[in-house]
């Protein structure tokens, strides 16, 4: 049984099928890349499986359980976590607070605990901070010294790392990365690729779906590539095979290239 599986997944926006009849599976430990021209439905696909858009038809199963139509917070609790194309950080919160946001549903302290601050609450907070620091130091140990700085003062690549750490700190089963290298220069893109590999080393069972335009990343990071065009899945397989597929070349370069 696949860890995450979609069947006939489709969404219609006012008559336009932004995603249509997509069958997709991913197993634990797998890294799958989604590619396709702009507007081909990659991000919309992620938005449907993470519950932000309701599917018009089709189903999503996580570990065999039907999660179609669940709210984003419920899907998050089932073990799916994601990042967005543009930064979704709270600029006026510190590095550690931003990462802690990923643990908020796991914390048990209630209203009275916050007022009375018993030892167990303090321990819980201390432990959460520790987990967040462990996570971020894995990507960039220098951020430990900057943990109480506001994220608006942190460089772009480290902001990305903070977002990935926030998505990972709750130990999800599925991680969705939407263009993690957007806005990074070549050198930074290389270190981001390295970071994604590190995620696999640290959390071996995690499966990752990654959307990326940078073909260097797509060539080396994912084990398998799925190609979208006009809302439909048009190809799937190894990078070296997929890029030679006539449909894929046609989608990217137009009819004349084939």
């Amino acid at each position: 049984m696949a860890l995450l599986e979609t069947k006939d997944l489709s969404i219609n926006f006012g008559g336009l099928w932004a995603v249509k009849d997509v069958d997709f599976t991913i197993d634990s430990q797998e890294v799958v890349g989604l590619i396709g021209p702009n507007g081909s439905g990659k991000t919309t696909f992620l938005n449907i499986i993470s519950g932000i858009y309701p599917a018009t038809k089709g189903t999503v199963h996580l570990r065999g359980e039907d999660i179609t139509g669940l709210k984003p917070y419920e899907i998050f609790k089932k073990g799916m976590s994601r990042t967005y194309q543009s930064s979704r950080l709270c600029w006026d919160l510190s590095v550690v607070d931003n990462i802690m946001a990923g643990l908020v549903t796991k914390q048990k302290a209630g209203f009275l605990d916050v007022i009375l601050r018993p030892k167990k609450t303090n321990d819980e907070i201390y432990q959460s901070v520790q987990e967040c620091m462990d996570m971020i130091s894995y990507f960039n140990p220098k951020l430990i010294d900057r943990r109480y700085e506001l994220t608006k003062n942190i460089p772009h690549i480290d902001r990305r790392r903070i977002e990935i750490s926030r998505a990972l700190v709750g130990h999800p089963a599925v991680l969705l990365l939407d263009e993690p290298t957007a806005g990074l220069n070549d050198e930074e893109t290389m270190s981001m690729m390295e970071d994604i590999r590190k995620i696999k080393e640290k959390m071996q069972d995690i499966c990752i779906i990654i959307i990326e335009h940078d073909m260097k990343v797509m060539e080396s990071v994912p084990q398998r590539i799925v190609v979208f065009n006009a809302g439909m899945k048009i190809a799937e397989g190894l990078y070296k095979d997929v890029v030679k597929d006539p449909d894929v070349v046609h989608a990217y370069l137009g009819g004349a290239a084939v």
Partner: protein
Amino acid sequence: MEYLLDLIWSAVLLGCTYTLVAIGFSLFFGVMDVVVFCCGDIAIFGAFSILASYTILNSLGIMTAWPLLLVILLLLLIGIIFCMALGLLTHRFSIKPFEKSSALMPLLSTIALGTVIREVIGLMFMPATNGLADVVAGENAIHVVSGRNPQSFPSLLSLGGSTDTRNIIIVAVTVVILLLLFFFLNKTKMGLSMQAISQNKELSLMTGINVSRSIVITFVIGGVVLAISGFLLGNYQTIMSFDNGSMFGIKGFSAAVVGGLRNTWGAILGGMLLAFVEVMVSGYVPNGSAYASIIAFVVVVVFIIFKPEGIIGEKTVEKV
């Protein structure tokens, strides 16, 4: 000097009521990015529900049988329940249907709802000359010049007929509410979730925050704050008119804008600033009470021109 102190005191009292309404505005705006324009009317609705309950309790003899504190708490609870219910109805019928349309739609629909609330209060509370006579007569006659059906609000907080205790209670209650709200918003998981939604909705969605539940809770808390502000305003003005909500709401909204929408501390500063301008103009300009609101709103216009982000609001830069 004593005159100045009196004026300052009045301004603080008026500022307290404005502040609470302004906080209602910034709570709703903060969490949903929507201006709920009927905040003032919800508060006045709360005040009128307290007024009605008072009349009923009085006729049942409970007012004299029960200790005053208990009665006040009971009345306040009734007002809070009514405001909470009205807040939730506002959300359900005036805001939620327009979730996916432009921000103008809920703005217009809440303005319309405000008018509905106002007129319903006006219909339910026909001229009550009995209640009014007590207030208008006597040496401190109050001349009611506006409003169709002014009602006298029970002076519950003026223990032993002294307005000093009332004033102290108004300030104290406002401070307690502000502290509780501050604590709730900054220390509890729910309050922090509400702030997270206000700052970054997508982030909240994907960190496991139940956004729709948080919005409902915002309306519940907003209802509590508005009910208390209506109750305090009733005690302060001693006379309530069904259409008070309109001006009260606009003042509260202006206070929130001047302070910086989204910012609770800004709401306090804005509320106090507006109240100080009004009271000082009334106090020092000959025949000034007629101009008080005009000058206060000129201040608002000046703020919108020169500091549109508010006193402590942050400039938002849209990246294209």
